């Protein structure tokens, strides 16, 4: 088991990083009925950890007895029925799913599942009608239609069902949905907090962490706690005892993008563009999201770039990132950005060095 999972706090009391949030949530759940919740914040900040701990707080250890189901939903969409296959994870008290896996038919999924959950709601010990919790991941990737239907169902079934939404950016969640939820912002942990966690993990594993080493990992982690713990584990495998100047291995795809960036800087020609395309294909095949590829590529390119070009390059990156989200095939847009960059950079080189 990875350390990330091994040392993930199970209860709200054990949470180190967002202690205040955890305590507030605990109070919220114990003292009164829980509203719909919307957790948002960058990746690796502990949203899911909080949600899981919260579920445990609400339902006790029963929330951890889950089963994974790959269920086919038959959805009646007006004139025809659609079969949707979706992986869900459910306990007696909650259901969790990634509705965006359903692609553009996500709105049916949301409605259908909530309806079904509302039908068989559990009865708790006091004979009161209890509620079930539906955890929806990646709400920001839901289509607009799906979010609209989510709004309706939230109102209609609010008696029997609570929603916990989880996303990276709340700006992509419609205003209507946001206003119906208690918004909980989970900000990225500071480097100090990350160091604290790393030291905690180190102590549990019985590792000697040289001073400053944890800080270096924290610095490299881009304020993602998950990333930091994963790095710690890879370092442990790479070399132990740790030395202070030990290199922290980057992710393979990051290295790959670094290579692409240096390829681009070295030569600007259609042939090179073609090679870059091949490399981007490989990243895509390995399921690296195209947005992340583009972002990382820009990041790597900017590091090597003259200040006067940075503005323009950023502009085009933003332009093609937008295009990519609107468009269908990411490679067209990533390539367009690379070509644009090559063109700008070559022009710049010629202008400067003749």
């Amino acid at each position: 088991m990875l350390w990330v999972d091994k040392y993930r706090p199970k209860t709200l009391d054990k949470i180190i990083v967002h202690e205040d949030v955890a305590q507030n949530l605990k109070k919220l759940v114990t003292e009164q009925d829980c509203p719909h919740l919307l957790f948002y914040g960058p990746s690796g900040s502990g949203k899911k950890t909080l949600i899981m701990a919260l579920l445990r707080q609400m339902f006790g250890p029963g929330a951890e007895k889950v089963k994974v189901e790959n269920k086919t939903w038959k959805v009646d969409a007006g004139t025809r029925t659609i079969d949707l296959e979706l992986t869900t994870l459910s306990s007696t008290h909650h259901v969790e799913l990634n509705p965006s896996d359903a692609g553009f038919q996500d709105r049916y999924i949301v409605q259908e599942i909530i309806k079904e959950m509302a039908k068989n709601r559990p009865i708790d010990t006091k004979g009161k009608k209890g509620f079930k919790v539906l955890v929806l991941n990646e709400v920001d990737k839901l289509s607009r239609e799906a979010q609209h239907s989510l709004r309706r169902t939230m109102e209609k079934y609010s008696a029997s069902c609570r929603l916990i939404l989880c996303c990276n950016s709340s700006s992509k969640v419609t205003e209507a949905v946001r206003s119906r939820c208690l918004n909980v912002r989970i900000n990225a942990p500071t480097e100090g907090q990350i160091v604290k966690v790393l030291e905690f993990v180190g102590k549990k594993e019985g590792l000697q962490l040289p001073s400053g080493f944890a800080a270096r990992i924290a610095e490299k982690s881009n304020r993602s706690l998950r990333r930091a713990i994963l790095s710690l584990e890879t370092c442990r495998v790479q070399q132990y005892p740790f030395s202070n100047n030990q290199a922290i291995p980057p992710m393979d795809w990051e290295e790959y993008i670094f290579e692409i960036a240096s390829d681009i800087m070295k030569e600007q020609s259609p042939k090179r563009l073609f090679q870059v395309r091949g490399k981007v294909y490989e990243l895509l095949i390995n399921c690296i999201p195209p947005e992340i590829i583009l972002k990382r590529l820009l990041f790597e390119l900017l590091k090597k770039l003259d200040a006067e070009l940075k503005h323009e390059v950023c502009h085009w990156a933003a332009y093609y990132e937008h295009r990519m989200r609107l468009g269908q095939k990411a490679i067209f847009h990533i390539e367009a950005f690379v070509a644009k960059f090559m063109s700008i950079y070559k022009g710049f080189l010629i202008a400067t060095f003749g």
Partner: protein
Amino acid sequence: MSLIQCCLVPVDERFAATRVMLDEEDEFFSLKSNFSHSKLKTRPSSVPRAEIRKAKKARLTNSCTRSCKESSGFDEIKRFCEDFNEGFTGFKIPAGCERSNKDLWVDKYAPYSLEELAVHKKKVEEVKVWFEERLRNTREEFCNHVLLISGQAGVGKSATVRMIASHLGATIFEWNMPTPTIWQEHLHNSNSGIRYTSKLDEFENFVERIRKYGMIPSTITGGSQTSIIFLIDDLPLTLQTTTHVPGTELQLSLQSAGACKVAFNPITVNSIKKVLSKICREEQCKVTADQIDLIAKASGGDIRQAITSFQYFCLKSRPILSLSFSNGTPTYSKERSHELNRLDDGFSFPFGRDETLSLFHALGKFLHNKRETENSFALDKDAFVLKERFARLPLKMDAPEKVLCLAHGQARPIADFLHENVLDFVSEEAIDDASVVASYLSDADFLLASLSGILTRNYEAENVVQSAAASVAVRGVLFGNFHPSPSRWHAIRRPKLWQVEQSLWHNKLEMVNQSCVAYNGVSLSNLSVIATENKPVLKWLGFRVSEGLEAPQVLMQGNVVEDKNFDSMSLDKKDNDTSDDEIEDW
């Protein structure tokens, strides 16, 4: 008695179905060379040697079905004899077709001598020499008695062989493909108790029969050494089996087995014109030379089609559309494109083949980006003057949209193909051009995506957007590629993107199945998190959580190798499809 076998094989390169099994074919060769005396089956299929395709086909199917239904031996033999009698009364006039024949000018003015053939003299000579050699010499000297004639429809392949045969006094036995039995038909037949015989068996029977009985008339007529020519039409269809071997491969394997190959070119406009004028004289139609010229050009080298449309044209005594030729146009290429344009515009013409382009042909046009060397519109003062960097020379082709229409190109595949291939055609220095092209392709993709995913589809709007996207992609490529790389042979690749998408989809599915492995299985996690963080670390740590994880975890290098194999496998055929000269030709 010398026995000449010749297979005339009009492998119709465009339209022929292309399923042939090689093994079967070898068998088929040995069958001919060994002449094993197997038992003669008296099951008749027709011994066809009719002349017009339509008529013979009708008759053939007729006799086939009849022969299946009736099984009385007498009838069989009777028909068998009939067929033979027909065969010996001269190969031109099968009974029953006579009347209708004369209505069709194609048959009425079919060539009666070698001189009349519209085929190029040299080709005729080539075929004739081949026949003569084999007639003169004994069988032992020439082991290959197979001549393979290829060429598009209506270039006079069959006519040439018939003419030569009659010139040399040889008898032709023509094998026509019986209509294939479809499965439902087969079921129906077997229910009604009719036995199915494979087409290959039928063919063997045919050969066997000719061998045994073909000689009889020659002995009757006094022992003159009549040679026999087998004419096998539509070879790929004849040997239709389940294994996939393309028609070109069939040709190759035939050649490697020792067949002599003669390729017929489309008939030249002048030859067609000559034939048409002759018909015109004999029929006394009032048709001007220009009109004949136009019909000849519209036929695309297919003389059968030219004559038919000519007849149709004369039938309708309506005046042809304005036909005056501008004699002032200087270059041939211009004149030609000019005329072609007019033909294309003239959908109102009552004749002419519907020209279609293959997708690859169209792609080749777009990618090679052939342009005139000088701008003829430059002198036009009223014309909107563009800045120099936006100005392009006129295209050496029709409007891109028209080409797309001819090629039946759909926006998505067109964009994918262009995207895959365009960089090869951009000059090595011109990254700016590449960037322009890429940005247009990005626009096209954006247009294509804008309507997908909406469930209540508006097909009309979608159509418009689709064609707009295709137009943007194509014109973007044409405009952006300002400095095309010097023309050389490029293979057009299949978009790798498709394959990438497939493996991406596959990997994603695997990942969805694993998505609960993280978080100790108590929660689902994002795909992107798994892909970007968990998987690389797991790979790094070198331990696998489960077997399921291993499968999609193909290393990057692994993927590449796999891809390459995949590509070369599936691309072989398509690569052949597009060659430079094909494009130049146009």
